[in-house]
């Protein structure tokens, strides 16, 4: 991905050279042309077209924000309820993610989801121990984590 962005910037600079016009407008035009060229040459790159990756990073950021909103609402509702009837607990969750970077992002996301908090990551990085505010539905919680967060992170790192 880094290579493709670098190449795109270089194409834009070459475009500015060709026009001998050093304005931001020319840079943007050159950058758009570079995007088109890199898209046409995408089969020569070992990995995917980089705008798709940028798009999935943007989606991940939006997921972070919306989860933060939802979890705040959940926590505030628990606090404001006159009687506290939750069953907290710690459950183990096995992840399929491999690299340290992916697991860090996943545990940050879990810290921001409604009613969950990462307590511990095991040494091999395959099990996360998560403190849940309401543990009644462990399966549902882990399914949610697996289907939304892991998928979004894999979209970023594995394409």
């Amino acid at each position: 991905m880094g290579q493709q962005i670098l190449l795109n910037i270089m194409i834009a600079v070459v475009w500015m050279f060709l026009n001998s016009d050093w304005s931001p407008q020319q840079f943007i035009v050159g950058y758009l042309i570079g995007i088109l060229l890199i898209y046409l040459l995408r089969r020569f790159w070992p990995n995917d077209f980089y705008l798709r990756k940028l798009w999935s990073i943007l989606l991940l950021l939006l997921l972070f924000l919306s989860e933060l909103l939802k979890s705040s609402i959940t926590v505030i509702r628990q606090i404001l309820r006159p009687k506290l009837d939750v069953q907290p607990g710690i459950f183990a969750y096995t992840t399929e993610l491999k690299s340290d970077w992916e697991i860090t992002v996943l545990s940050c996301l879990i810290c921001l989801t409604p009613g969950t908090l990462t307590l511990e990551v095991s040494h091999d990085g395959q099990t996360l121990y998560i403190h849940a505010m309401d543990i009644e539905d462990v399966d549902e919680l882990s399914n949610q984590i697996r289907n939304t967060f892991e998928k979004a992170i894999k979209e970023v790192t594995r394409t």
Partner: protein
Amino acid sequence: MSQIGEFLIALMVLLGALLGALSAFGLIRLPDVYMRSHAATKSATLGVLLILAGAFLYFTFYLEHVSAKLLLGIIFVFITGPVAGHLNGRAAYRSGVSMWEKSVHDDLKPALKRERERMRESSNADHPGKG
């Protein structure tokens, strides 16, 4: 435009302050460290984010000054909030702070015990004389 903008900014700042107050209330009310950590990481983070975003919008539209420092502050709080919550919880669990008595499920305790035993064995293997 300016009426709506003012209203929006006031709403954001007020909502942020309200969230901060509510999460402080949660710190008093919730029974154990871990649940307090839920309140402190999530709603307090969101409250600070809302206040900073409101201040950013105010500076941008009414004083015509785009403040990059506020944006950086938003990003930093957003990144470090959950990490701080995680580290607090981890340190509390490792130093043996017990959970609320109504807690039902604990997968971490046996895992931690196994790990400690393994560490003891390996340190014994390293220094056989001391035992």
